């Protein structure tokens, strides 16, 4: 008997079930007939003979059931019947099914949505050859600081030469290119890579060729690889795109090929539409020429260990090789204190097959918290559906009793009920997947607002479907098992008895499900309150500047001072109050630190303060109050005495007991030694981070800067900011032919810095509200059910003279008791949960009494509303009708 044979016969049974059933039935009848004929020969009547024959057989249906369950394929067959039976049951109760599917769909959908983000951000392999082989290179300096994962261009090139360790090393960094010229200029998200990038990842071109090592030489012609998506959008997949010239930051680059579909770079979530080699781009771009020097650590590296070399061996060999080459790779002009840690650094190779993104670190905690939140929402949904099932189970008890009496084992009935519940959860899951998919765009916009470069594919894939299937199966068992066991516990005899309905009402299961829902809702509501409070505290924080009414334009390509005429031109535009320049704007994410101490003290080797290069009237435009002294003016020119404004924190640290005005600072500004005269003291600002204490800050005059530095135009304007932004862009774009100018409100930049808090407040609030609604519906359902059951009792009470108010109080009292127990159980859980998210909070303690109190009040109010309708209905019960009940 081969396995194949077995399958064939198994499926024959399943497929020809009708006929098989008929034959089985026929065979049983034959047995009874022949047996009865035998008995009659012993002289009993036909009826008696048949009765004895059936007895000898042990019941026709029972034997048939035993045959069915013991043959191969029985399970498949029975499950098929159970599924059909379940659908018939559903068709009779569409309302019940709708409520269950909606509840579970919301719960499962929320889980699917958050999980698909986690999948896209953290779990998905890069679409490259054997991604599991790839490692990300990290360097651990002596001490227990975190390992660095950025390297200078020379180091990545040197790593790529270690062919006995790696078959290839792929260095990459996200880069925003200005593509085109004149009016058609636009920003395109791209990447700068080393020559080994595509070869290491093992990719084949969709068209043309990919970049190679020879493209990374300084004298190589500038070659660009475009993404499949960019090819589609810009060139309609025309083969003629290969060989065309793209103007990249003012320099011509030839499109040599298209990367394969699905691959958007090793930087997860940041689509690279245009990829250039760093070496070749450096020869046409000053900024990148500076970047690829030994002093800048900005490239991440993925590597593929050579065949037969384990990760541990590669790490050990790399560390050995490093001791011989580090000296030539680390910038020679760096001070010894900065160079020496590299001598004893050790390499670490972390799994790299899922690529790299900064967002992973930034979103790990928020996503973990959100995943826990949606898991709790799903638990509440399960508890809710379980109580619905329980309430409904008593209505079905008779049907189940009949099935038990007809020879179905308890396990068999439990299985049938579990199949019903998993079917419900599967339908809920299908609905949830649709919900998650439909809301994925909204979710991305909430999580990554305004970042046009962030793209994730949240289309349901194998991971996501697998996750949702597992969740839905677990859900089905979770909410189905208790009701199934409860319903079948009594056995056929008790169940067929009329009184069983009153006996099962004594169960504590239903109220405890409500208590659990209340407790879990409290946890979510407290969490939502804490996150909302955090966002509110940050928004109310006085940052030391006024973000309203200010526009900024980052002239990122420019590393030399902007001409004064350009600033004057903007100043002259109608609606502009004042225009100036700054090297760094608040919360832009980029900062500049350098060294400055009062004259007479030795200048330290390490940076001692944050620096901002400020144009005339910048502090006035930002509305950063001056404690004393003056703002920068037009007179602070390159030829004048170098001046500085320090913030309060700096003044307090370095001039604790003297007036700083008129004192001098010894400073190193962008590599140049300077003596700066302090002309003003400004109020502290949270420009470097809303949550951090204001760092020691030195403002220096923009016009007195030398060397290379970034520039942002800062403009205070009246009226409609969007219109002003467009007007300013029109005025300056023609003078900046190589840079796509974006003029944005400063408030957008500040908002972007609060995105994590906004997401947490928004999503935790939404899920908290969902939990509240579910718990209220659950409570309402329980009370309505209780009132319906106690109609007779209430009727008697009313007949015996109980006042309506007392009846209402009785029902409400029950609700209050349940909610109180739930709150008491929920409080420690809420406390523990808020401790876990403490680091994400700002300006309030985990056990914030106002938040906890608010959550309890909200929960109580919702519970009273939910309880009032059943209570009122109970009070309207007419004793006469009630006593006739049943």
């Amino acid at each position, binding site marked *: *008997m081969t396995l194949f*044979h*077995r399958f064939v*016969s*198994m499926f024959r*049974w399943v497929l020809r079930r009708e006929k098989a059933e008929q*034959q089985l039935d*026929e*065979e049983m009848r*034959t*047995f009874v*007939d*022949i*047996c009865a*004929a*035998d008995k009659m020969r012993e002289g009993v009547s036909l009826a008696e003979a048949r009765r004895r024959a059936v007895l*000898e*057989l*042990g019941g026709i249906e*029972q*034997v048939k059931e*035993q*045959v069915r*369950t*013991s*043959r*191969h394929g029985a399970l498949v067959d029975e499950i098929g019947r159970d599924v059909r039976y379940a659908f018939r049951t559903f068709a009779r109760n569409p309302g019940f099914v709708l409520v269950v599917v909606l509840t579970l769909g919301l719960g499962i959908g929320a889980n699917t949505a958050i999980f698909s983000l986690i999948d896209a951000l953290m779990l998905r392999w890069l679409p490259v050859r054997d991604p599991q082989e790839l490692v990300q290179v990290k360097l651990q300096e002596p001490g227990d600081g975190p390992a660095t994962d950025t390297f200078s261009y020379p180091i990545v090139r040197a790593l790529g030469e270690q062919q006995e360790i790696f078959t290839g090393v792929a260095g990459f960094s996200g880069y925003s290119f200005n593509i085109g010229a004149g009016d058609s200029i636009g920003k395109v998200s791209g990447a700068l890579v080393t020559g080994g990038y595509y070869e290491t990842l093992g990719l084949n071109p969709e068209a043309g060729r990919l970049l190679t090592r020879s493209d990374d030489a300084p004298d190589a012609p500038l070659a660009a690889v475009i993404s499949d998506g960019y090819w589609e959008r810009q060139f309609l997949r025309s083969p003629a795109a290969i060989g065309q010239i793209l103007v990249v930051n003012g320099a011509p680059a030839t499109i040599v090929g298209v990367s394969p579909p699905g691959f958007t770079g090793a930087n997860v979530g940041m689509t690279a539409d245009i990829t250039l080699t760093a070496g070749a781009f450096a020869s046409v771009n000053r900024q990148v020429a500076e970047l690829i020097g030994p002093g800048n650590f900005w490239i991440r590296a993925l590597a593929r260990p050579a065949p037969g070399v384990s990760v541990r061996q590669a790490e050990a060999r790399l560390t050995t090789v490093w001791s011989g080459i580090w000296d030539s790779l680390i910038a020679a002009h760096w001070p010894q204190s900065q160079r020496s840690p590299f001598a004893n650094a050790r390499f670490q190779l972390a799994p790299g097959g899922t690529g790299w993104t900064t967002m992973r670190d930034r979103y790990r905690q928020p996503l973990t918290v959100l995943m826990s939140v949606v898991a709790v929402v799903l638990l509440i949904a399960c508890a809710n559906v379980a109580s619905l099932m329980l309430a409904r189970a008593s209505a079905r008890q008779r049907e189940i009793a009949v099935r038990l009496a007809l020879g179905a084992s308890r396990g068999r009935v439990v299985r049938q009920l579990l199949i019903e519940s998993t079917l419900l959860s599967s339908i809920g899951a299908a609905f949830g997947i649709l919900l998650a998919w439909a809301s994925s765009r909204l979710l991305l916009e909430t999580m990554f607002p305004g970042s046009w470069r962030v793209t994730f594919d949240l289309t349901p894939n194998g991971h996501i479907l697998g996750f949702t299937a597992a969740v839905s199966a677990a859900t089905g068992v979770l909410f189905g098992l208790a009701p199934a066991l409860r319903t079948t516990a009594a056995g056929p005899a008790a169940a067929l008895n009329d009184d069983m309905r009153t006996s099962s009402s004594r169960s504590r299961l239903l109220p405890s499900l409500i208590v659990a829902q209340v407790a879990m809702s409290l946890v979510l509501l407290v969490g939502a309150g804490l996150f909302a409070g955090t966002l509110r505290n940050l928004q109310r924080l006085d940052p030391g500047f006024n973000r309203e009414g200010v526009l900024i334009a980052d002239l990122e390509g420019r590393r030399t001072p902007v001409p004064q005429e350009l600033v004057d031109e903007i100043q002259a535009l109608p609606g502009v109050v004042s225009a100036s320049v700054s090297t760094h704007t608040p919360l832009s994410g980029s900062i500049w630190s350098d060294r400055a101490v009062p004259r007479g003290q030795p200048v330290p080797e390490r940076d001692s303060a944050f620096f901002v290069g400020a144009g005339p009237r910048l502090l006035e435009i930002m509305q950063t109050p001056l404690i004393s002294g003056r703002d920068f003016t037009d007179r602070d020119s390159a030829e004048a005495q170098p001046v500085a404004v320090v913030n309060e924190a700096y003044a307090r640290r370095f001039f604790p007991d003297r007036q700083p005005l008129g004192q001098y600072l010894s400073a190193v500004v962008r590599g140049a030694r300077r003596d700066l005269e302090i002309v003003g003291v400004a109020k502290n600002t949270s420009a470097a981070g809303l949550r951090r204490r204001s760092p020691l800050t030195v403002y220096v005059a923009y016009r007195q800067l030398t060397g290379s530095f970034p520039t942002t135009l800062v403009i205070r304007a009246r009226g409609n900011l969007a219109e002003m932004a467009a007007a300013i862009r029109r005025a300056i774009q023609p003078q900046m032919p190589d840079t796509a100018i974006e003029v944005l409100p400063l408030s957008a930049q500040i908002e972007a810095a609060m995105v994590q808090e906004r997401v947490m407040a928004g999503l935790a609030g939404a899920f908290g509200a969902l939990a509240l609604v579910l718990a209220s519906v659950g409570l309402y359902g329980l009370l309505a059910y209780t009132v319906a059951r106690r109609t007779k009792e209430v009727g008697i009470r009313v007949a015996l003279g109980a006042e309506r108010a007392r009846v209402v109080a009785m029902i409400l009292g029950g609700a209050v008791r349940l909610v109180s127990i739930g709150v008491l159980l929920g409080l420690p859980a809420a406390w523990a949960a808020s401790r876990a998210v403490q680091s994400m909070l700002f300006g309030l303690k985990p056990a914030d009494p106002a938040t906890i109190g608010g959550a309890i009040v909200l929960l109580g109010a919702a519970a009273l509303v939910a309880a009032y309708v059943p209570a009122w209905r109970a009070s309207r019960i007419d004793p006469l009708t009630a006593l006739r009940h049943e």
Partner: protein
Amino acid sequence: MDKLDIPQGTLDLMILTILVREPMHGYGIAQKLAALSQDQFQVNPGSLFPSLYRLEQDGKLKAEWRPTENNRNAKYYKLTAAGRKQLERHKQRWIRISFAITSVLEGA
């Protein structure tokens, strides 16, 4: 005297043995089994029929519907070649087992 339950795993062997001589229907097999065991065995149709169906599904038995001597249509089970082989194997094993058990019991 109480009837004996059929020892675990031996029902298949006995069914195959009974069917080796001629095809029979379910009731006939039950009767024959009772007779051959001198009414010692309690033959429960609730285990007999599932065994028959399983053996049929495994290809050890083949079934056909034909009239009984009383002209009642019944399902007759017949041994297949595979069934014959299984019978031989299991019979040898059972003889060895019962011989071994008897030896132990008598040797003690």
